[in-house]
């Protein structure tokens, strides 16, 4: 693989998640952007590609997955708790 092609692929690897992030920010209502899963995952991809293997990448994954779990539980949790009889 030539150096140029390698740099091009690396650039595309960074550009793709950024493009998805821009698409989500520009198309989702402002009030929903902060908890848009696709935006979070694309930013995670961007950060982990940029940082490479190491603690930063692990931290990014930990933060993103914890945040996504919080988002899920925020939406589905009350329904499940109501069905279980924990919430009225």
């Amino acid at each position, binding site marked *: 693989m030539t150096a140029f092609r390698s740099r091009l692929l690396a650039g595309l690897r960074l550009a793709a998640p950024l493009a998805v992030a821009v698409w989500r920010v520009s198309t989702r209502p402002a009030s929903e952007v902060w908890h848009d899963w696709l935006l979070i995952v694309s930013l995670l991809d961007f950060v982990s590609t940029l940082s490479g293997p190491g603690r930063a990448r692990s931290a990014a994954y930990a933060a993103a997955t914890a945040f996504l779990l919080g*988002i*899920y539980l925020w*939406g*589905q949790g009350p329904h*499940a708790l109501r*069905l279980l009889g924990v919430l009225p």
Partner: protein
Amino acid sequence: VIAGVLLLLAGQLALFLGAHELLRRVRTGDAALDLLIFLILRLLLLSGAVLLAGLSGTLTRWGLGTAALTALAALLAGGAQRRVERPSLPRLDAWMLWLAGAVALRYLLQAWFFAPHLGDALAYHLPKIGEWVRAGGFTRELGLHPHATFPAGFELLETWWVVFLRHDVLIEMAGVEFVVLGAAAVFVLGKHVGLKDGAAFLAALLFAVSPGFCLGATSGLNDSAAAAMVAATAALVASRVSWGIVALSVGLGLGIKATYGFALPGLALLAGLSRREPRLGDPARGWSAALGAAGLLAGAFWYARNALWFGNPFYPLGSAGVFNPVAVQFGPSVRSFLGNVTALIDVRVYDPQPLGANVDESAGWGAAAFALGLPGLLWNAGEPRWRRLVTAFGVSLAGSLLFVQNDPWCLKYVFYVPALLAVAAGRLWEALPPLRGIVLAALAASFAGSIVSYDLPRRDLSGLAAQPWRTRAAPLREGGAFRGDTVACVGGHALKSYLAYGPDFSRRVVYLRPAVADELAAAMKREGAELLFADSDPRTSELLQRAIEAGALQPLEGNLYRLRDGSRK
């Protein structure tokens, strides 16, 4: 009952030994993969036994029981039991086994206490089982729902679980079988992408508790079964087992539900992308080909029957002039695809609604798939086997979303996606130990979120649990109770006619299709039915109103009516 239980056990033992004998001819040497193939072979034998019994008119406790005893005697005489080897078990921590035990116990409790309750199951899937069990064989009458003619591979398993006892208390065990199959498939997929036993096992558990798949498995619907077959076929294809075994899986999958076929493009792509991988095992070619042909035959049976009866293998889809108020898309639609994709990524992946088997306006993938599976797709995404798997599942998902109508329930046809997302979560579990607390929290959330379904709320669940098992049945929501030996049914897709049979199939149900009110009363009289069970669609309501005005029918509670005394003479 004791005879029924003993015959059921004999049947299970015959299936076990028979499937093991077949496995010996086609085993790969990989313990996990061989377990998956064993489960599929068992499924083939079970389906074949019920199909043959149904066709030969021996679908009774003693008919199928005699066949099971004969097969068992032959297997034992041939020494099949001596050839059963101790399986090599995965290396697992004790807490994982406890966790698996809790999940298994939960499923067994669901299977025991849940009685068929969902509208689709009661109106469309199960009435045919009522007819088959009462007739002791396959019948032309399948019920009033326009989709009663759809493939019934899953119903074959349900029939197996009811025919020996002549009671439906164990009917949901059919779905539990597919949970085991799906979990085994996820374990194989996990091992395929390099996970250790523990992480692959955890992935299997995550899939088993993904809410949509879990609640669907014990609801009488066949979507979870179809999803398990997609995951199983993916595991077989990725592992490069022989084509005969893949064909066996494809045949059984198509026989369960046509929607299984929508995922096939991705599975075909997976086969193409994996062609340079080494083949596993060296099965006897003749056996492999024969098993593949048997699986395809079992799956094709329903399509051939429809072609013979109606001139259309997919009847009623694509047939002109059929009154079918239950909208189902026939063929691809870009419009549906775009609507489905948008609904999935913008709304339903969050599971924003109370969950149930039909996952109304939700995906039902659960907390682990959402919080760990989706980001886990990206972890080491360049690893060849993982990349192939993600690409194949992506194409399968796209295929399914292209062929299903954009309605509130469309994502129940892609319950197989959490299988991949569970493996993705397993990869994170193994690669990133700091995330393990999050994985366990997500697993706990999925487990808790799939205990109670919105369509079987706690009040109804308590009601079912309080009933003795012999009489356990979902109540008629509209009120009233069935009585007498014979119930006439009239109406359409919303009529939950399975309830009329009773859990022990003791009541005869006759399906009437009168054009005018006079015909209704005459048909009831001819069939000896005093009680009428009818739904409230406009066409039926008008008919009933006329019959009531003519003095032929007397309304009772809910959707029940009585043939007036004068009309019975």
